[in-house]
């Protein structure tokens, strides 16, 4: 039990990361509303940012912008990777929402269950 508490403290941010990730994933799989699914998807993607960024931090360091008199900086590489990931995430969201708009026009609904129903009927 004591070990667990110690672990919880040492890895608190990572535990939260896992919680965020899984919540996003749960929304995507469990929900039938297409917009909600996409929001869940971007939640899922966003949580990955912490997985990359938090190991790059060094306690007592600063942002990786070089200055005189500072010697400890955070690792810049994860930041660059996540910048790219953010862009990919918003690009996916934009395309997904465009599809939702077209689906709504074609079917009159954005609930997956209703769409399947309408497809099997007609």
């Amino acid at each position: 039990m004591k070990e667990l508490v110690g672990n919880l403290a040492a890895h608190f941010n990572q535990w939260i990361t896992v919680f965020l990730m899984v919540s996003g994933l749960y929304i995507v799989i469990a929900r039938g509303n297409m917009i909600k699914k996409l929001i869940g998807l971007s939640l899922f993607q966003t949580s990955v940012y912490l997985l990359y960024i938090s190991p790059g931090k060094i306690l007592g360091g600063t942002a990786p912008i070089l200055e005189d008199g500072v010697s400890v900086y955070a690792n810049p590489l994860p930041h660059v990777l996540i910048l790219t990931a953010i862009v990919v995430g918003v690009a996916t969201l934009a395309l997904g929402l465009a599809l939702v708009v077209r689906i709504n026009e074609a079917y009159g609904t954005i609930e997956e269950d209703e769409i399947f129903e309408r497809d099997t009927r007609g």
Partner: protein
Amino acid sequence: MRLDVILRITAKLILPMMLLFAVYVQFHGDYGPGGGFQAGVIAGATVILYALIYGLGATMVVVPVAVVEALIPLGVLVYAATGVMGLLTGGNFLDYSHLADDEVHGQEWGVFVVELGVFVTVASTMVAIFYAVAGRGRR
């Protein structure tokens, strides 16, 4: 209507500031947080705000659709062409070292032009998507 007047005048004050901020973020990326992507988002948002206040028609006169849609691939083209310049000046693709007399300056130039390409694509994509969604309307 009064509210509208206030909005328009405030917008006249704010929009140039936003553009200026975009330019600042673009060029200050070497020394502080920021760069082509963030600046492009701000610039794109400026155009969208303009459209929200002054109407879609007026905006499409200032920023025509055809121009916006041509700028999307042009930004990427600027980026990729800079890379090809590296290739033509004797280095590998995206090697900026030989773009200027000494390597450090070459790198600075390369990064500068490349960030400009990112800026163009990001800003124009945002505006183009906004135009497309706004042109769709509620049914």
